[in-house]
């Protein structure tokens, strides 16, 4: 019977299937971090349970760590306790951990792929909704809650209801200056933040195949912003090439490739829903509101809520404009920015840093703003430094930080002040996401860099 890619992976991981019950699915890799794991380990202790497969589990510190002075103890005692708790739990239960200061420390979704642990055909979970990132390798990867973290620790399985499948076909060629971030922002604006609920998304088409692995990760990363728990892309030569030579690449590489090459949706497989997007038409995208679906091409103006017919959407747009301090009709390119954030699991990889550095090289950022450059992992930071990118950023007047989630979420010391406005390469523009009262515009690394130079939302073409 013909199957979609997601169905193939699902079926290969069924440990037990019974009528009227969720499928019990085997989990190949479990990533953990400090914020969503302490209560799970506590649960194990209370019930006297062990971690079934520490050898399929790996931890890193990312959400709650500072990106300055990382050689000093963490200043905030509550954050310190959370990080210390993770370290103690990993020690007690025998889980490998990459702590602050370690060359492999970093955002959990950057660390997995760079170690070569993320591979096609796997099931991957993490107590973090952006686990969908790993889908770029043709893995079925999704975020879970803390009870599920505990469940996977104890059993290496999860009881799950089989999701529906949605194909998103992106055909054509991107114009210069348009990136994979713009593809995914356009998809979310099209299907809405609830459009993917209950589905696994499969991104397909010539525009997706043309993307690098890192650009594919950016697309899959934001599947959750479209409401989908997982999004994936069929593996190809680029995928195999990317994994080759990584520390955890399979020793019997040929056997692995032989299997990986079977991982695609069959030609006559039926998706529950299909969506089409024309890549030729895409422009750099930016969000104007407080959910990721409230986005427009950079050349547009702030929308007028009065023109929105759906009452619910109109109300949301009105509230968003008030929160964002924007007036309908203002050209998006006239919006002045206070802080540019380049980083996160969406756009904190080496290619993202390279593409921004290329624009900033030999130039100075606007004196009206600050720019934070935060590599997604310590490894990315080292790589960037070996290429001299740190100097480019510093010479341009930006700050060069250590690895972590940083300003992607208002939890660690890197936060927006009340009313402060950012152009951010991260993935969520919710109210207060980057700090209480902070105002977020989601953008690509290219738009972030161009904006840093001009002080207002800009695309590289404006330079």
């Amino acid at each position, binding site marked *: 019977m013909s199957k979609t890619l997601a169905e193939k992976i699902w079926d290969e991981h069924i440990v037990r299937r019974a009528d009227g019950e969720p499928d019990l699915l085997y989990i190949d890799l479990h990533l953990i971090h400090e914020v969503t794991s302490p209560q799970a380990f506590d649960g194990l202790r209370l019930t006297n349970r062990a971690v*079934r497969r520490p050898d399929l589990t790996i931890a890193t510190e990312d959400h709650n760590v500072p990106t300055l002075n990382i050689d000093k103890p963490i200043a905030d005692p509550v954050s310190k306790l*959370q990080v210390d708790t993770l370290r103690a739990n990993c020690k007690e239960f025998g889980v490998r951990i990459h702590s602050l200061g370690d060359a492999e420390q970093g955002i959990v979704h950057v660390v997995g792929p760079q170690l070569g642990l993320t591979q096609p055909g796997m099931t991957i979970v993490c107590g973090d909704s952006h686990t969908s990132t790993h889908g770029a390798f043709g893995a079925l990867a999704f975020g879970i*809650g803390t009870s599920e973290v505990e469940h996977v620790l104890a059993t290496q399985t999860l009881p799950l209801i089989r999701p529906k499948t949605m194909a998103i076909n992106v055909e054509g060629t991107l114009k210069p200056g348009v990136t994979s971030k713009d593809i995914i922002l356009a998809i979310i604006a099209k299907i809405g933040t609830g459009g993917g609920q209950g589905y696994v998304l499969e991104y397909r088409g010539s525009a997706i195949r043309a993307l690098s692995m890192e650009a594919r990760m950016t697309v899959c990363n934001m599947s959750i912003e479209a409401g989908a728990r997982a999004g994936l892309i069929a593996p190809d030569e680029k995928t195999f090439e990317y994994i080759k030579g990584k*520390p955890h690449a399979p020793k019997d590489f040929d056997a692995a490739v032989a299997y990986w090459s079977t991982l695609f949706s069959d030609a006559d497989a039926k998706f529950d829903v299909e969506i089409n997007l024309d890549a030729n038409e895409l422009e750099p995208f930016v969000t104007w509101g407080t959910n990721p679906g409230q986005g427009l091409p950079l050349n547009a103006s702030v929308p007028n809520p009065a023109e929105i017919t759906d009452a619910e959407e109109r109300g949301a747009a009105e509230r968003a404009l008030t929160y964002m301090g924007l007036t309908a009709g203002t050209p998006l390119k006239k919006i002045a920015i206070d802080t540019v954030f380049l980083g996160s699991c969406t756009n904190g990889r080496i290619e993202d840093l390279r593409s921004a550095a290329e624009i900033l090289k030999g130039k100075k950022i606007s004196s009206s703003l600050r720019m934070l450059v935060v590599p997604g992992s310590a490894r990315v930071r080292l790589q960037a430094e070996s290429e001299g990118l740190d100097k480019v950023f510093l010479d341009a007047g930006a700050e060069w930080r250590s690895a972590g989630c940083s300003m992607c979420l208002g*939890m660690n010391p890197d936060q927006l002040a009340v009313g402060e406005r950012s152009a951010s390469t991260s993935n969520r523009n*919710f109210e207060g996401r980057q700090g*209480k009262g902070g105002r977020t515009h989601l953008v690509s690394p290219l738009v972030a860099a161009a904006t840093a130079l001009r002080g207002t939302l800009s695309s590289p073409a404006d330079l």
Partner: protein
Amino acid sequence: MEKFIKHTGTGVPLRRSNVDTDQIIPAVYLKRVTRSGFEDGLFAAWRNDPDFVLNQEAFKKGTVLVAGADFGTGSSREHAVWALQNYGFKAVISSRFADIFRGNSLKGGLLTIIVSQEEVEALWSAIESKPETAITVDLETRTVSYDSTVLNFVIDDYTRWRLMEGLDDIGLTLKQTESIDSFEKTRADYKPKTLPILK
């Protein structure tokens, strides 16, 4: 887990759609390593506003939250469920929930109930005009009832049974250890392990 069979309480009308998990509990409140005490972070940004529904005397004691569509979008933080439970909520009613939030809530014993948007609107009007309206959420009969209205909702048999018995998912899965053992024997050996690579 506590059994959930039937609950009667008053409602809290939250007339907002797309309430994401950063609104339910902002990240700064996620630093605790316990499962309790998250009520102080619940809707933190809105609680400063004296007009916010939970600051109104009439709704302070409510245990059934009635929210706009797409409740719980955003992050996978289960803290959002704990914050609602720690505050005292037993059930949330909406026309649409985000997948991960719904999964988390049903695992943790917070009943999330889907009814149509019109039914949500009617319920809002009923509680706003008479905050003391008793709302009964009955998992046995899969109904929500208030005044003379009875709404049916859908929940799969398995989840319903688990909630009504108060069963722990992990305990249930551990009964399948033999199936897990035999599945593991068939796994390909080129699949990666996280053991440190010795150079």
